[in-house]
């Protein structure tokens, strides 16, 4: 126990950009480093995200969870995932929106106080992805609720999500 804690304190942090072979281009690194400022500009340096699975395959969820691990550690930017939409500033929706989740998705959107952002995360959320055309999906979040931004990828890697978030916040700032 104590050993672990001490190790944690004194070992060097493994946050991105990684030392070991991970493909982040210097420009992207620059973006991430510059990301903090953007979070600052809008939402007063604090962004609380409510993630909604609208029928994804669960890969996107795991990537969102990975955002909170010590390596990506999104909390250091002042971004956090919250338990109730009442506490949230941004809805991060994944999945092609299965018909049986549409209602719940709308309910959650209503429950979120303004000002709020809706972000579609993943190819499925963009336009239904591989599930496009299936009878049981609405082919993307955009067909159910107004979407402010889209994060492509199947699933988008944590790095990709962070970069995308930075751009989204850029866009909103403008």
């Amino acid at each position, binding site marked *: 126990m104590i050993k672990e804690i001490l190790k*944690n304190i004194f070992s060097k942090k493994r*946050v991105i950009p990684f030392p070991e072979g991970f493909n982040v281009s210097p420009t992207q690194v620059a973006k991430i480093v510059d990301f903090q400022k953007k979070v600052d500009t809008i939402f007063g340096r*604090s962004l609380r995200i409510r993630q909604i699975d609208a029928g994804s395959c669960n890969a996107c969820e795991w990537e969102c969870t990975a955002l909170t691990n010590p390596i990506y550690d999104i909390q*250091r930017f002042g971004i956090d*995932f919250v338990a109730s939409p*009442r506490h949230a500033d941004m809805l991060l929706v994944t999945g092609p929106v299965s018909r049986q989740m549409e209602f719940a998705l709308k309910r959650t959107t209503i*429950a979120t106080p303004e*000002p709020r952002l809706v972000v579609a995360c993943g190819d499925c959320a963009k336009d239904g992805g591989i599930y496009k055309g299936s009878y049981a999906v609405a082919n993307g979040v955009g067909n159910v609720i107004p979407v402010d931004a889209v994060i492509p990828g199947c699933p988008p890697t944590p790095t990709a999500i962070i970069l995308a978030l930075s751009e989204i916040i850029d866009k909103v700032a403008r």
Partner: protein
Amino acid sequence: MNIDPLIVEILQIAVLLIVAPVFTGWIKMVKCWFQGRTSPSLFQPWRDIVKLFSKDVTLAENASWIFRFTPYLVFGISVMAGGIIPILSMDLPLSAMADVIALVALFSIARFFTALAGMDIGTAFGGMGASREMTIASLAEPAMLMAVFAVSLVGKSTSVSQMAIVISQGHSLLRPSLVFALLAFILITLAETGRVPVDNPATHLELTMIHEAMILEYSGRHLALIEWASMMKLFLFAVLGIASFVPWGIPRNGELLSVAVALLVLLFKLAGIGVVLVLIETGLAKMRIFRITEFLGSAFLFATIGMMSYFMLE
């Protein structure tokens, strides 16, 4: 030069309002370090509060006035409590407003209304949170009173600043009664402020929540007030501990220099307390809800031993 006590009073409340979120930020920071993470800024809680104030309120359709009134009341109580506990000086006009028992009662009325607000909307989670909160509170109260009893035996008073004065004169912390009382007080603080192993303030699992479950419906400025108030509650329990167990450094009267020194000393003590708290929170897993009986039972036992050791050893 001497400052007017009233100004010290106002200073104190200002310190409470400003430092409390930073204290929470500090705890988060240390926790991150212990978990091998890069921490958010020390002022992150502040940013969250400010952000929340700028957001709209989304209110449940069937919310009654109790739901809307509670955040203000809870906030108000925390602020007043800040004027009672000696933080920067022991000579406070308001410190006579309530002794420890009344102080605890003030916190319990805040809890009373929070629980009601939880039940107001009529969701299962609100009721669940309320039921758990009140259960834990009713087990914590006796232990708290015993701790107060033990300390007041040494301090010859139940008014906080008086206790602080008397104890700061006796130059040793190592009075058995105080040591046991301190142990009890730490356990009680963990329970009252909803920290691990009693409650997990950072949990995302609604079924395990206690305090969070009651405020799931709050948003915007209401949420800001409630979160701010609970940060202040943590801070207040910390300074209450300081005043009644390690009051050294708090000046007897509001002399300008010593007040400034007191502020520094306070920050150091708080930093220390934060580390201790995080050690407990990182080391332990959350216990089953019915284990809390034993947890607070041992707190009660410590306090009783403290009291008895006063009669026998001192």
